[in-house]
């Protein structure tokens, strides 16, 4: 244990140095002259022709950049935070995104500037499945109603034209007509984002709640990656989606849009050398770490989020291991059976499961297999990882059994042990000894691979890191925290497996 703690200290130190050095100044309390930053007079949109852009996967941004500027090199990111971080680290020259969102980012990152006027003007709509025209109609009716009674203007004033983050108004809901499910990507302040008490809030959420009230239905908010929203609505996992989705002809082929509920545009954001030069580190190294620590873990009790994400990761990993082990025994039994048909089934199963990337498998199971089924994504993840684990664990069990000396099995059989008796008394105890170390690494593998479950809107440890980043605009500290959390957890489970391994060796138990 002493050794482990030494390693941990070393890791934490390295992490701190990295975080400290990669100085990210993101104190939202710094007073910034907004107008100065937002109205950069020296640069125009046309100055960004041929520059390197950060764009978000699954959006129209790449097309917008190409159509309006041309000759640009593009880098794809999953969240706006990542794109902003890339700009700040000079990995790209600029990023582009919806103007109201960018406005908030610039308020919190004074070294960034935005080009005026926006590059394009856009209409944003809510997405509804083509199979549900009734809902589209209702949403449009609702829109007309709040425009006419002034609620809409009031909402815009509170959420968008407001420097501070407002509180969500209380909107009472009942489930008289069932529950509506809305798909969002909660990383787009002020439209949809995680509030200080880790609730998903924003203009869109208020909009959706008011609509639910209008429909006399309850509302369930499902957070996912932006790119997953349209597939989710298409496959009826959710009823409608919103996250400033630009209305385009291409998208209209796949999904229905409501009337535009917000008219905005896309603006270019870049690292302004002048403003950033003024912001160079005036705070001490240690203070920096302290502040990062405070902001990423203590504020809004974010450590609780980390712990709950970790718990989700552990639950998925262990459940998947159990399912994988049961399946593994079955697969092993099939592949060692004397019946050709069973051999073939196991062979096909192993080939397919081992040859498919985990992310793809996970999404297929979520969006295709369980498309029309209302199922907890965590269960889907457990099934997906269990299925995948089954293929690998099956092979582990098979090879472990094959390493046991056939002669010993013959000896047991010649004494009068039945086939299962020989397996139980002779084969298994020895196969466990050979198989356990490989089994352990398979479990570690599963646990690390679960980092992708964010794809199907599960808030696991990795996703928590993303959420914290989306709130604090600090890329490094949350990632390091997440990495350390994985490391400690995996180290803990390695210890447990090693303990089990020791227990299987009777000699070390001191029976002699």
């Amino acid at each position: 244990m002493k050794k482990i703690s030494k390693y941990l200290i070393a890791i934490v130190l390295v992490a701190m140095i990295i975080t400290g050095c990669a100085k990210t100044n993101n104190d939202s309390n710094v007073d910034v002259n907004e107008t100065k930053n937002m109205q950069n007079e020296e640069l125009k949109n046309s100055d960004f022709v041929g520059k390197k852009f950060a764009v978000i996967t699954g959006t129209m941004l790449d097309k917008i950049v190409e159509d309006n500027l041309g000759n640009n090199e593009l880098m794809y990111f999953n969240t706006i935070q990542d794109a902003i971080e890339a700009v700040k680290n000079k990995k790209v020259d600029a990023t582009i995104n919806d103007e109201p969102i960018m406005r908030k980012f610039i308020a919190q990152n004074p070294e960034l500037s935005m080009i005026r006027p926006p590059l394009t003007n856009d209409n944003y709509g809510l997405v509804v499945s083509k199979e549900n025209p009734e809902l589209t109609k209702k949403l449009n009716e609702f829109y007309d109603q709040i425009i006419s009674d002034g609620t809409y203007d009031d909402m815009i004033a509170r959420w968008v034209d407001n420097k501070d983050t407002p509180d969500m108004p209380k909107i009472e809901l009942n489930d008289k007509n069932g529950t509506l499910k809305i798909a969002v990507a909660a990383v787009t302040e002020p439209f949809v984002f995680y509030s200080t008490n880790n609730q998903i809030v924003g203009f869109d959420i208020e909009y959706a709640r008011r609509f639910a009230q209008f429909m006399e239905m309850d509302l369930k908010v499902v957070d996912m990656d932006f790119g997953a929203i349209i597939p989710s609505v298409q496959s009826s996992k959710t009823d409608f989606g919103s996250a400033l989705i630009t209305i385009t002809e291409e998208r209209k082929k796949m999904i229905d849009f409501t009337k535009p509920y917000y008219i905005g545009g896309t603006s270019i954001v870049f690292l302004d050398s002048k403003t950033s030069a003024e912001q160079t580190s005036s705070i001490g190294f240690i203070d920096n770490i302290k502040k990062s620590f405070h902001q990423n873990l203590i504020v809004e009790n974010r450590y609780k989020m980390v712990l709950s994400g970790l718990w989700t990761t552990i639950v998925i990993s262990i459940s998947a291991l159990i399912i994988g082990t049961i399946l593994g025994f079955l697969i092993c039994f099939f592949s060692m059976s004397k019946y050709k048909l069973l051999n073939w089934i196991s062979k096909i199963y192993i080939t397919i499961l081992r040859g498919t990337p985990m992310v793809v498998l996970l999404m297929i199971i979520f969006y295709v297999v369980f498309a029309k089924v209302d199922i907890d994504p965590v269960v889907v993840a457990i099934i997906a990882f269990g299925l995948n684990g089954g293929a690998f664990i099956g092979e582990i069990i098979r090879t472990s059994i094959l390493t046991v000396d056939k002669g010993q099995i013959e000896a047991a059989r010649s004494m009068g042990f039945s086939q299962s008796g020989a397996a139980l008394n002779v084969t298994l105890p020895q196969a466990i000894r050979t198989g356990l170390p490989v089994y352990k690494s398979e479990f570690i593998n599963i646990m690390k691979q679960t980092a992708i479950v964010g794809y199907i809107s599960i808030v696991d440890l990795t996703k928590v890191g993303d959420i914290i980043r989306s709130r604090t605009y600090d890329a490094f500290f949350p990632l390091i925290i997440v990495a350390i959390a994985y490391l400690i957890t995996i180290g803990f489970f390695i210890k447990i497996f090693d303990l089990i391994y020791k227990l299987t060796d009777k000699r070390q138990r001191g029976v002699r």
Partner: protein
Amino acid sequence: MISITNLIKNYGDFKVLKGVNAEIEKGEIISIIGPSGCGKSTFLRCINRLETPSSGEIKFENIDITDKKTDLNKVRKKMGMVFQNFNLFDNMSIIENIMVGPIKLLKKSKEEAEKTAIELLKIVGLSGKANAYPDQLSGGQKQRIAIARCLSMEPDILLFDEPTSALDPTMVGEVMAVIRKLAQDGMTMIIVTHEMDFARDISSRIFFMNEGVIYEEGTPKEIFESPKRDKTREFIYRRKTFNYSIKSNEFDFIHMMNNLNNFCFKHGVVKAAANKLELVAEELIMNLLLPLNREIDLNISFEERNKGYFIKTKYTGDKFNPFLDNEENLSVKIIDNIANSIKYSFDEKNEIIISW
């Protein structure tokens, strides 16, 4: 106790056992000997059905064990088997190896099984190793434990599959001593072995297997001292044979003598004996047979075990014995001097067998 009728075992097209018949009585000790690949081990493994016979019948204590309905596990409890590679259970200590059968299969209490195990360890002389593990023992010790493990099941018969073949020569003795002790106590045993002296010493009957059948069987005395059939004799006396065919007078004599010389060297025939063989062969071929101008088949063999030497020739043409009324011939004199017996016969071909 065991009655085997027309036992046949094929691996695909390869016929290993071609119809084995045997009767084994209680208290008998049978040794099965024979050249490698003759089916000894397969035969033994068919008896406890580790191999499934292709056809034939095996009855053990009047139970037909080739019958699919027979509870094999029940039958096997009565038949212990000792393997060439010991096959101790690596995951168990020595005493656990001996206790596992009685506890799990005979449903004995742990205390009772332990008591028996300690006694058995005493019998095989390894009391001190009770809590050791198989990988801490020598080959000989492992095999003794394997025997103790079989005995723990209180079997009616023990099958030994080459119990000493995987052992260092220095350890063969200790295992054989344990088997001898069992023999004295009247245990019924079938032993597949290559240890001829041991087989001769311990057995009540010997099965000589060859080409998938029991080729000859008898008491050790019959098999080892006066084997009736040629293949038995060849095996028992470890006969080595050299063949050469002479088609005409102009054959390559030097080549033949060189091959014969190599043959003698390869099989470790001592120099003096080799010289005699070469001398007789030369006199017989060059001086007595070649002048007749006939096709000659030469077959020279020696028996390693009893130092017997044989020169057999067959030649074509009219009946003619070069030794008849030819005592004055120098070659005849030389051969007469060396050989113990010279036999002439005629059956389509002339045949001379010279031996000493």
